[in-house]
Each structure stands twice: as C-alpha cells, then as structure tokens.
C-alpha cells in the first residue's frame, strides 16, 4: 500500500488501528461494581436499617399548603383621603372533637368562654351537643361572630391554652365615607358559582371575596394583589413543626380616584335636601379637559358596608324590595333628556346648514299646526310665546317650535329639516347624537349596569315595535317622531353622564372625552404603577358652530330659562331641560328636571349635569347646579 493510499485510508477510516485494542476495560467493571455498591449500601441503611424511622416520618409528614392572601389595595380620593379600610371580621370557633374529654374540664372551658365572649356556657354546651349529634364533631363551629377587636385578641391569646377553641379572621372591607360613595366604590362579596368557575383559574380560593360592583369590581385584579403561599409541616396534632417554604404575598394595588370626596358629599347632601317630591336624582361633575369625574352622585343610595356583615341577607332584601331602587346608579341610567338634547340638535342643524345663527323664527303663538301624514292637523306646543328669536335666543329660552324647525323642518311652510325627508332628518340627528356620546355606554370605569340609552331611528322603531303587541302602523316613522326627537322627547333617552360628556364636548370645542374616575394606580409601596391617560375623539362639528351654542347657553343663564344658575363671581353657561313623561302610576303627565352647563364661560374648567326625576329644570336643577359650580370653584379648583 502506498503512503498516499495509507493517508487516504486513515482519512476515510480515521483511527483505524492494526493493533488489537488493549485498553484498560477492567477499570470500568470495577467502577460499575463500586458505584452500585455505594448506592446499594446507602439503600440498605435508609430502607432496611432506618426504614422504620422514615416510615414514621412519612406517617406524620402532614404538609399543609396554604395560600396567604395579600391585603387588598386601598382606594383614595383625589386629595389622598381614604375611602376604604381593611379590617378583620373575627369569629370564635369551637371544634367539638378537640374539646377536653372530661365533662368537668369541658364545662370549665365553656364558663371561661362565657366570661370572655358573654355567651352563656349552657348555650355553648347545647350548640356543641347539637353539632355532635349532627355528626359534625370535626367541623369548627362558630359560637360568636363579629367579635370586637380587643375581645378577639384576648381570645386568640387564650386559645393557645384552650383545646378545641380557635379564632378565625376573615378580611373585611369598611367604607368610612358613607353611603354617598357606595355607587362609585361598590363592594366585595362572595363569589357566585359562575364567578368561581372563571376565577379559580386565577388561583382564587372558594371562600375568597371578590369585587362585585363599582371600582371594587372594575379593578379587582389590581386591588387583589398576588397571593403568596406557605408550605408548613405539621404533626399529627396539627401543630406547626416547621415552615418549609414561604412566598410572601404581593400586596394589592391602591387606587387614587379623581373623585373629590368632599365635593361628592356636598353634592349628595345638596341633592338629598332639594329632592322635594322627586324620588331620584343624579349629578355628574367632571372636567371638560381631561374627562376625569370629580363627583358622580346617585340618590337614593345604599350603605355598602352591609355587604361585609356576616349575613347581609335581610338588609340586602330590603334594598331589593325598595321601590326607589337604591342599587341603581341613577347617573348611569337613561331617561328622556328633554331640552338638554337641544344642544345636540343645534350642533347638527348648524353643521348641516339648515339653520344658521341668523335664522329667525317668530314664535308668535305657543301652538304650531302641522299637517300629519294622514292629512290631519296636529298641534305641537311650545312652553310659551317667545316672539321673534334667533338660534341663540332659541337655546336661551329653550324654544320647542324653533327646534322642531331645526330638526324636522316645517313642511307646510316649505322649511326643510336636517335631511331630505322626515326619516333622513331623524337619521342625521341620530348620527350627531351618537357622535356626542349618546346611545352608547360611556365606559366609565365603574362596574355597573350602565345603560346605553336609546337614540331612535326608523329602523330601530320597526324592530322594537314589531310583535303582536303592536299594530303595523306603530312601526312607521312619522314626522312627529323626528320633531319630538329634536327636543329630546319621544323615544330618546340618555344618562346624566352622557349629557355631561356631550356638554363637555360643546364646552371644550369639540372633543368627546372618555370619562373616568380612577386617575392613578399605586403599587403596595406607594409608587405609581399607571396613570389614567385621557382619551378623546373629535366631534364632527366645527368649532365656530359650537361657539354659537356656548353663546346660547351663556345667554340662557344671563336672561333665559337658566337664570337661576347664575353666580356672582363666575360666568356660568347652561341649558335647562324639562322632560315630560306620562307617569305609569296614574297616567298624569309629569316633568323631569335637567340642567347641564359649564363654567367659567370663557375657559371652562368644570361641567355639571344635574337631574331630578320630578321637577322643572330651570327651577329645581339650575340653582342646584349653581351651588355645585360655586362649591367646586371655591373648594376643589379655586
């Protein structure tokens, strides 16, 4: 074989050796034997020599894995005033199986508990006997609930020497602010079976409370924090032997609301004291710049502290039975907006061009005769004879006839409405209403039953008026539907919050804001985790048209329907609303009182919307709004 072939051969068959391998393989056998002998020896020691000891340890190896719940995050108002406290609910527990065997010892223990808790020893004995008879010897039995804190502490100390006695502490939320905060804060409560199905995925314990409504529910994930865990070894008696592993819980995050708690209280008391015959009222105070809500009040309200009682059942039932529906958030519940809606009709008409600031109408009669689709005359009323007015006067005096003209037109005089025909006019007006935030939920960050309200349209009417309860002609869209829509009556409904953000869009030059009540989220150590970012959309109306509406609203306070909203030091602008409705109780037509406005006129800093379910807007709502604006400018944002 040549040298080259040999090299190639070595390349192809590297390491090819002509020698019989004579490596030291025996050492491998020795290694196998030695290493397995080591393992075998250790096994002999562990399993055969010490096996009984390990078996005993396995027997009493009772390892308990507990979830350690973090403290729930707190909630503060915009000035750092606390709106919620974490507290404990203390319960004295007795486990019959662990009580002393001897009857005498047992009774001495009951007597001791009688001293401490004030529960007669005999009563405890009866309860224990009954539990044993039910076969519940091993279950802890609650003998006293809602203990005072110092009693609970004494019991906790004493329990160490009292076999079978224990103290349980359940976290409890206290809301010190009063019922005026209930609709914002909401409350926490036990999970429903549906919630449990979802929440157990996130590691919730079955008996863990969760936010049910309000910001407590909306920010549940942040407020709850991250539970820790403790793995402890206990002996057969259940006593702690050693802590094996402990992961500290991560405290819940705290919320800083944009709400001013003193303003909230002021508004709540103001509305409560000016209710008169009204049974419900609401007010929204918000920023026309950022969308943050300073106060949002609903009357009547409820005490959210009842939900942290051991058994809220009775109180809760009373709330459910109350005909005034205290659990309903009035500021998020839709009703007819009445003449406050005219600011939207005015914006639509100016933008569409069917009305200009110079368009005049001589309202020389409080009645206008329309010829209906069936050729019959229909009489539409204004609330007074306004005389010859332009758009600003029509807003200031809230002329219905002027706004019929602006929305549905006056066909018999050849005056066109917003669109080419009656249905088109309604559709165009509906488009603008939606642009101003009506007919859809605002998404306010309070978990509640916020309702979108209704902006009707011919298509909507055909849909909801179908079915056996209605005649075919009930589904048709009439001239009157468009006209009534133009003055915020008919089928139109809106929530006080929607009217407030629509007002804000007029005040701030055309920006529809997303309202919010939570301005900052803080970590457990107080550092800011996130800050609310104001978001807004452009309303499709020119700023010059909105300026006309603002002038009309200012005029209304100077010498129009909203005169009672005037303040000495500030230029207030506003629009009243007095929405008629037929009371389903007795068939009598009654009125709802509205006012929505802003101040100061030239550089708006606050929007106020006030609503009473009974009353006249200019008489009842306007002065209340003035008080709120005055209070706001003096105390909240001087």
């Amino acid at each position, binding site marked *: 074989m040549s040298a080259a072939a040999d090299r190639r051969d070595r390349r192809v068959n590297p390491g090819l050796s002509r020698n019989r391998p004579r490596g030291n393989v025996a050492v491998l056998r020795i290694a196998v034997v030695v290493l397995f002998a080591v393992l*075998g020896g250790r096994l002999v020691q562990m399993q055969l020599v010490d096996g009984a000891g390990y078996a005993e340890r396995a027997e009493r190896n009772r390892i308990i894995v507990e979830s350690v719940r973090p403290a729930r995050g707190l909630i503060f108002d915009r000035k750092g005033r606390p709106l919620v406290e974490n507290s404990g609910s203390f319960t004295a527990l007795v486990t019959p199986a662990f009580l002393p065997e001897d009857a005498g010892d047992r009774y001495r223990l009951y007597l001791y508990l009688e001293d401490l808790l004030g529960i007669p020893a005999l009563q405890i004995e009866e309860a224990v006997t009954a539990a044993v008879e039910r076969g519940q010897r091993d279950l802890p039995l609650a003998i006293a609930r809602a203990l005072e804190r110092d009693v609970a502490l004494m019991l906790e100390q004493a329990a160490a020497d009292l076999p079978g006695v224990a103290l349980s502490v359940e976290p409890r939320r206290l809301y010190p602010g009063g019922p005026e905060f209930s609709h914002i804060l909401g409350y926490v409560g036990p999970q429903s079976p549906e919630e449990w199905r979802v929440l157990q995925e996130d590691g919730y314990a079955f008996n863990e409370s969760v936010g049910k409504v309000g910001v407590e529910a909306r920010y549940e994930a942040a407020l709850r924090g991250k539970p820790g865990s403790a793995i402890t070894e206990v002996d057969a008696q259940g006593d702690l032997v050693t802590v094996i592993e402990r992961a500290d819980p991560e405290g819940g995050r705290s919320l800083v609301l944009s709400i001013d708690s003193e303003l909230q209280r002021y508004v709540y008391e103001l509305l409560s004291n000016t209710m008169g015959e009204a049974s419900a009222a609401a007010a929204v105070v918000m920023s026309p710049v950022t969308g943050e809500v300073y106060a949002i009040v609903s009357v009547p309200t409820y005490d959210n502290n009842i939900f942290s009682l051991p058994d809220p059942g009775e109180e809760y039932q009373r709330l459910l039975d109350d005909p005034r529906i205290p659990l309903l958030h009035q500021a998020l519940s839709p009703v007819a907006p009445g003449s406050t809606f005219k600011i939207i009709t005015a914006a639509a008409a100016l933008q569409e061009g069917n009305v200009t600031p110079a368009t005049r109408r001589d309202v020389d009669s409080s009645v206008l005769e329309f010829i209906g689709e069936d050729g019959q005359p229909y009489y539409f009323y204004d609330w007074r004879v306004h005389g010859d007015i332009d758009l600003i006067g029509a807003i200031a005096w809230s002329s219905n006839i002027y706004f019929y003209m602006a929305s549905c037109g006056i066909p018999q005089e050849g005056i066109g409405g917003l669109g080419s025909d009656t249905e088109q006019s309604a559709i165009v007006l509906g488009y603008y209403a939606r642009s101003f935030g009506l007919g859809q939920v605002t998404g306010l960050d309070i978990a509640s039953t916020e309702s979108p309200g209704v902006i009707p349209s011919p298509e909507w009417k055909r849909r909801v008026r179908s079915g056996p309860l209605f005649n075919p002609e009930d589904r048709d869209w009439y001239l009157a539907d468009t006209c009534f829509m133009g003055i915020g009556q008919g089928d139109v409904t809106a929530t006080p919050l929607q009217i407030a953000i629509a007002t804000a869009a007029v005040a701030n030059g055309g920006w529809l804001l997303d309202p919010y009540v939570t301005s900052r989220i803080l970590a457990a150590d107080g550092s800011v985790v996130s800050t609310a970012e104001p978001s807004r959309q452009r309303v499709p109306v020119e700023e010059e048209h909105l300026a006309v509406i603002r002038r009309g609203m200012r005029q209304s306070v100077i010498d129009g329907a909203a005169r009672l909203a005037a303040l000495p030091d500030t230029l207030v602008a506003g629009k009243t609303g007095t929405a008629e409705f037929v009371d389903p109780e007795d068939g009598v037509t009654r009125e709802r009182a509205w006012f929505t406005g802003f101040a100061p006129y030239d550089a708006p800093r606050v929007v106020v919307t006030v609503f009473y379910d009974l009353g006249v807007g200019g008489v009842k709502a306007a002065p209340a709004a003035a008080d709120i604006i005055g209070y706001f400018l003096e105390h909240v944002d001087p």
Partner: protein
Amino acid sequence: MSRFGTQGALRAWDRFDAILVLAALALVGYGLVLIYSGSLASYDGPAASLENPVARQGLFAFIAIGVMFIVSRFDYHVLLHYAWWLYAISIVLLLALIPIGQTDFGSTRWFALGPIQFQPSEFAKIATVLLLARFLSEQGGDARDLRVLGGSLAITAPVLLLVFIQPDLGTSIIFAAIWLGMVVVAGIQRRHLLFFAAVFLAVLPFAWTFTVADYQIERISVLLDAEEDPLGAGYNPIQSQIAIGSGQFSGKGLTNGEQTQLDFLKVKTKDFIFSVLGEELGFAGAMALFALFIILLLRGIRAAQIAGDVPGQLIAAGIVITILMQAFINIAVNLGLFPVTGLPLPFVSQGGSSLLTLFIGIGIVQSIVMRHRAYRQF
C-alpha cells in the same frame, strides 16, 4: 472492496447483542410503570392520548428503538469520520443556547422546536465521546503521553464549560467523567492521574467561590445538612429521602406511596422517579433496577472488550461511562448523597430527548459489537 465492514456485517445480525437491548427495554418498561404511578395525581385524562405521559413515553421509546436499529446498521467509522463536524455542531448549538434557549428553573438548557424540546448537551455527549475516541486512537490509543492527555482535555473542556455556565452542574460532571473514564481506558499514567486529582482539589475552592451559581451552592450546602434548612432548597431532598426510606424492604405497593400520591415529591416522573420506586416498590424493587442497570452496563463493557479496534473500544467505553455516571448521580441525588442537579435516570425517567440519545448510544454499541470480527482482521 469496501473497508466499511459490509462484508463482515453480512453476518453481523448474528452478533447483535439481544441481551443489551432487552435490558434497555426492561428499564424503559420499568420506567413506564413508575411514570404511570408518578403521574396519577396530575394526569386524569384518557389513556390513549399524547397528553398521557405514559403513552407519550411509550411512543418516544418506540421511535427511539427504531432509530437504534438504523444506527446499528451503519458502521461506526462513518460517525468517527464526521466526529469533528458533530463536535463543531455541538459547540455551535451550545453557544446558540446563550441568547435563544428556553430558561427553565433558572437554567438555560433547552431549545424549543415547536412542541419538542431539544437539549444540545445530550447531542454533545455523543459527539464528545466520538471525537475523544477518534483523537485518542489517532494517537495510537495511548494516553500515556502528556500531550495526548492535554489534547483530549482541550476537546472536553469547551463543551464542559459551555454546559457548566448554563448552568447544568450534573451534565458538566458527566463530561468530566467521560474524559476521565476514556483516558483511563486509554492508559493514563498513574502520576498524571494524581496530578489531575491534585489540580482538581486545588481549584475546587475557587470554582466554588467564583463560578458555581448561588443556587448550586445552596443545593450543595443543603446536601450537607438537608434538615438544617428545610426552607426552599431542602424540600426535595428531605421528601425524597423520606419517600425512599419509608419504602423499607418491599415498598408500599405501586400507586400506594403517600409521598408520591399526595404530591410531597416533585418532578416525580423525571428527576425523582427513583424515589417513587423506592417508596412504592422498596428495597427489592431498587435491587431489581440495579440488576437491570448492571446487566446493561456489563454488556456495554463486553462490547468495549471485544471491540475490533481502538476507536470502537473507546466509543463503547465512553457510552458505558455516560450511562453509568448519569444513573449513579441521579440515584445519588434521590438518596441525598449528591446535590440536586436535574439529571434524568437513563431509560427510566420521562423525557423523549434523553431516551432518543440513549438509544442512539445503544445503536452505536451494537454497531461496534456487530463488526468486531470485521475489524479484528487488521
């Protein structure tokens, strides 16, 4: 005529080592039983599902055995020919782990290829065995020369260090053992051996201080006294020792171990599967496992003994050492003799990547056995 041994291999299947394969299959079967018991508490789905760890492992075993037959069909010299390439690929893969690997329990050892996890250090073990075998045999199969020794060390050190920084202490010890075992088989001089032992002891304190990750120190010190600090790191050793010790001679019966079934044991189908065996099948079950391992390893040593040439002998030795050390360290961890390192018990623990590598190793050993006469002619 080809020298790739095809002629010799014509009769090769006659020489196929059935005992070796049967021992490996018995270990896999034993593993399936233990995985079943160990996963009872966590898996309650249908039996015939890829979610079922037992079915999954069975499927992997089936594939791995197929791969073993394919590998044994090839002449192991083909692998030797590409040894440098395989080694280079291993280094690249281990380097690539640094930025893109999957971090698991604070350690970066895996690539995620869709649903499959691929552990480059498994591949690197085989590549390193092959390259060491080629290098040492090219030097005449003789590690008495200090330069040969240094060269072999230079081959092992990069993979060892790359694995060590993952950090994977257990696998880096395997690499050290592969090197040590192979140079011993290749005839290292006693004074060199003593020299390396001295260097190792001298470097140990520095390595301890500067390079061993905190969690490894914690595990090692826990090993020294697991009872002293049962917080966190001491949990697994205590629970595995209680499990094994309480199994006593005959065990508590399959699926009856409360340590296993009540979840005191963690990773009990993988790193701590021996504890399941110790608790439920006792000393007797452990001895049966040891017997299977010893049969398997002795058959591997037989392959080294009868290998037709030096590289064949060294490869077989390297694979035997890999399996031996992996089994030893894993069981030692379970018995509280060694810090927790995260090595699977070969053939027994759940895990497709490990099983595949092991059967490739067995396939190479078969290839050596089947061709030992073909190469002895030279």
